[in-house]
C-alpha cells in the first residue's frame, strides 16, 4: 500500500470511521506499517487516561468492564475497550470470548470492543496493546478500558499501559493469598472484590486493608471496593474511585512522571525489537558454523563465535 492510501485510512480513523479503526488496529497488530501509522497517531493522542482491569480468570473482569461502560455511556462518553485473551502456545490460535459478557453494548456505535490474542507475548497484554489503545483514542473514544488475560501472574506489564490499575478478586477460594503470591497486590491502584454477594467478602476486604496498613510510604492508598454486577452494587463507587485516582495522578504530578518513564520504556522496547531483528540476521549467518555442536561445550562455542563477530569481549 502506498503512503497516500495509508494516510487516507488514518484520516478516516480520525473521522471516527469504525472500519478504518478496525483495519488499522489489525495492521499495527500484524506489524504492517506499524511505525508509520503510530507516528501519525501518537502526535494527536496520549491525553486520555487508560483504566486497566486485571485479576484471575472468572473473577468477572468482563462484566465489570461492561458495567463501567454503561456508566460512561450514561454520561454520553465514548468508550474504547481492548480485551486480551491467551493464544494457544501450541497452534498460535486463540478463542477470544470476552465479547460475550459485553453484549449490552454490542450494537452501540459509541463503544468499540477489540479482542486480542497474546500471540506468544507474556505479561498479560500483547506487544501492540499500548499502541492499539492509542488508535482507539485517535478514533475518538475518550474512555479507554483495557482488560488483561487474567492468568493471575506476570500481569505486571499492565502498569506500563494503564494509568489506573483495578485488580479484581472474588471472596473465598484463597484469592487473596493467591494475589499476594502473584505479586498483583503491588500493581493495584484500586482493589475490587467482585461477586461480593458470595460469603466472605467483608473478611477479604479486612485482609486486604490489613496488608495495605503494612505497606506504608505511598501517598495513594488503594481503596477496596465491594461490587456485585448481578445485584448492581458498588459500581458507582468504583466509578468514583477511578475518577479520584485519576485526579490524584494529575494533582500530584505523577502523571507527568509516569509519561516520561513510559516513553523511556517504549524507546527501549523499540530498540529491543530492532536489536532482535538484527540479531536474527546475524544468527542465520553464524549458526552454519555449529556443525559439531554435539561434541562441543555450548559456553565455549558461544564465547568463541561472539568474539569472532565482535572482535572482543
Amino acid at each position, binding site marked *: 500500500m502506498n503512503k497516500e492510501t495509508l494516510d487516507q485510512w488514518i484520516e478516516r480513523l480520525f473521522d471516527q470511521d469504525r472500519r478504518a479503526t478496525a483495519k488499522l488496529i489489525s495492521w499495527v497488530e500484524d506489524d504492517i506499517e506499524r511505525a508509520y501509522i503510530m507516528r501519525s497517531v501518537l502526535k494527536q493522542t496520549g491525553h486520555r487516561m487508560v483504566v486497566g482491569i486485571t485479576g484471575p480468570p*472468572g473473577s468477572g473482569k468482563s*462484566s465489570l468492564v461492561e458495567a463501567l461502560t454503561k456508566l460512561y455511556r450514561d454520561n454520553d462518553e465514548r468508550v474504547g475497550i481492548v480485551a486480551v485473551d491467551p493464544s494457544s502456545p501450541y497452534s498460535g490460535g486463540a*478463542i477470544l*470470548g470476552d465479547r*460475550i*459478557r459485553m453484549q449490552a453494548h454490542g450494537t452501540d456505535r459509541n463503544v468499540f470492543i477489540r479482542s486480542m490474542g497474546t500471540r506468544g507475548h507474556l505479561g498479560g497484554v500483547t506487544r501492540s496493546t499500548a499502541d492499539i489503545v492509542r488508535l482507539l483514542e485517535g478514533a475518538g473514544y475518550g474512555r479507554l478500558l483495557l482488560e488483561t488475560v487474567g492468568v493471575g501472574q506476570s500481569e505486571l506489564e499492565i502498569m506500563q499501559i494503564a494509568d489506573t490499575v483495578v485488580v479484581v478478586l472474588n471472596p473465598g477460594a484463597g484469592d487473596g493469598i493467591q494475589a499476594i503470591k502473584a505479586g498483583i497486590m503491588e500493581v493495584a491502584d484500586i482493589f475490587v472484590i467482585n461477586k461480593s454477594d458470595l460469603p466472605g467478602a467483608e473478611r477479604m476486604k479486612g485482609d486486604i486493608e490489613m496488608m495495605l496498613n503494612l505497606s506504608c510510604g505511598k501517598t495513594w492508598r488503594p481503596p477496596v471496593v465491594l461490587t456485585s454486577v*448481578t445485584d448492581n452494587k458498588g459500581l458507582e463507587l468504583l466509578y468514583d474511585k477511578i475518577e479520584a485516582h485519576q485526579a490524584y495522578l494529575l494533582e500530584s504530578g505523577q502523571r507527568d512522571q509516569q509519561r516520561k518513564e513510559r516513553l523511556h520504556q517504549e524507546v527501549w522496547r523499540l530498540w529491543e525489537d530492532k536489536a532482535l531483528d538484527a540479531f536474527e540476521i546475524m544468527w542465520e549467518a553464524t549458526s552454519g558454523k555449529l556443525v559439531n555442536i554435539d561434541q562441543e561445550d555450548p559456553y565455549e562455542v558461544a564465547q568463541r563465535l561472539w568474539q569472532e563477530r565482535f572482535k572482543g569481549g
Partner: protein
Amino acid sequence: MSNNFLSWKAKYDAQKERKGPFFTVSSVPIDPLYAPGHTADIDYERDLGNPGEYPYTRGVQPNMYRGRLWTMRMFAGFATATETNARYKYLLKQGQTGLSVAFDMPTIMGYDSDHPRAYGEVGRVGVAIDSLQDMETLFQDIPLDQVSTSMTINAPASILWAMYIVAAEKQGVPAHKLTGTIQNDILKEYIAQKSWIFPPDPSMRLITDIFKYAKDNVPKWNSISISGYHIREAGSTALQELAFTLADGFAYVEAGIKAGLDVDDFAPRLSFFFNSHTDFFEEIAKLRAARRIWARHMKEIYHAKNEKSLLLRFHTQTAGCSLTGPQMENNIVRTAYQAMAAVLGGTQSLHTNSMDEVLALPSEKSVQIALRTQQVLAYETGVTNTIDPLAGSYFVETLTNQMEEGAEEYFRKIDEFGGVLGAIRENFFQQEIADAAYRYQKEIESKDRIIVGINGFVNEKKDDKMDLLKIDPEVERAQVRKLTALKQSRDNIRVQTTLTDLKETAQGTDNLIPKIMDAVRAYATEGEIIAVLKDVFGEYREQAVF
C-alpha cells in the same frame, strides 16, 4: 479370575484381533469377554431385586410391559396452534397414546411472536403459544381428562402450565384430573441446553412453587422431568448424562425440602427424561443403573418413606445427535436400535426420532415410520414378553455396576463445588461436556470411530431428494396478527391489574402460581408475564466454555 477364564484369555491373546478400537460411543473401553468372575460380587436382593422391588434395577413395576406397554409419545408441534391441533388429532388416530408439545423458540425463551427477537423463528421448531387463546386452540376438541400431555418447556414452564390448567378448566376438566408432565428442569439449561431466562435462585423458586401448587391442586401431574437428554445432545458421554441428571434430581429434592416440603410430598411426582444413543448395551446399563442409584439415594440419604418416592420413572427419546444428513434413511435403523435399548432399559414412554429431523421438522410420512418403529418393537420383536431380559448378563451387569460407580465418583466431585449450583458457577459440567464433544468429533475425523455414511460407506451418488416439511413465512405474520387482535379485544385494565399483582408477589415470597394463573385468565401474554418477572428477577448471562 478363574483358571478357566485365564486359559481362554491365553488362547484369545494368541489370535489376531481386528483393528479396533473397542470402545463404547462414550469412549469407554470394552473387554473381549465378560464371565462369572465379573459379576461375582452381585447380590441379587441387594443390587437387583425383582421388578417393582427395591432397588428397582429390574424395573419400577412388578409387571412392566406384561401389564401395559410404554406410552408411545411423539414430540410434535409446529406453526400455529391450529396446525398442531390437527397433527395431534392425526397422531391420536394413528394409535399414539399421549401428546407431547414442542414449542417454538420464542415461546421457550419467553418472547411473544411480535417481539423483534422472535423475527423469523415463530412456529419454526415447534408451536407458537402467546396466550391462553393459543392454548385453547391447541387442545380444541381433545378431551384433556383423557389424554396425558407432556410439555417441553422450562424457564417459562409455570406460565405454559398455568395456560394448560386454565384451558382444561374452560373445557370443564378440573385440575385434579389432569395428567401429564412439564419439563421444568432449569438446571440442565444452565448445564447444557441454554434456554434459560432468570438466574438460578429465582428459577429454583419458580420450580418449588410449582411443586407446592401441584401437590395441592394437580396431584396427578409430573411437576418436573429431570432431563439428561439435552446434556447428551450437547455432547456428553452416557456416564456424564447419568451422573449430571441424577445430581440435578438430588438438587431439586434438596430445594423442595429447603422450601419446607416433606420429601414424600413431591418426590413421587418427579420424573426423568433420558437419551437413548446407538451403543446398545451402554444405554441399557445406564437406564438400569439410574433406577438403582435414585432408589438408594432417596432411601438412604433423603429418607423417603413413600415407596413411590424411590421410583425413577422416565421418558426416553432416541438420540437426535446420532442422526446423519447423508443417507438419511439409515436413521430409521439407528432409531430402531436405540428404541430397543430404551425398552430393554425399562422406559415408561418413548419418542422415536423421524429420519428427517436432522434437517427439518418431520414430515407426516417420516413421523409415521418412526411411530411404526415402536409398534413393530412392541408387537413383533417379542422383547416385551419377559421383564428385564438382560438381567444377569455378565456384560450388562458389569456395565451397570460401572455406571453406578462412575456416577458416585461424579457426585463426589460435584460436592466439592458445593453442589450443582456451585459446579455450574465454576463451569464444571460445561467443561466436561465440551471436552467430550470435542473428543467425539476428533474420533470421527481420525476414523477411530466410523459413522456410516459420514466417514465410512459414503455413497458416490447424491441422495434422493426428500420431501421436507416447510413452514410458510405467512405463519409468523398470521400469528402476529392474531396477537395484535387479542391485545385490542381483551380487558386491558384487568391485564394490568393482574400483572401488577404478580409483580408484588414476585418481590415477596408467596407462591407465584395462583398469580400467574390470574394473569393467564385475563389473557396476559407469555411475554408480558415474563417481562414482569425479569424486572424483579433479572436475567441469566451465558458462561461460555470451550
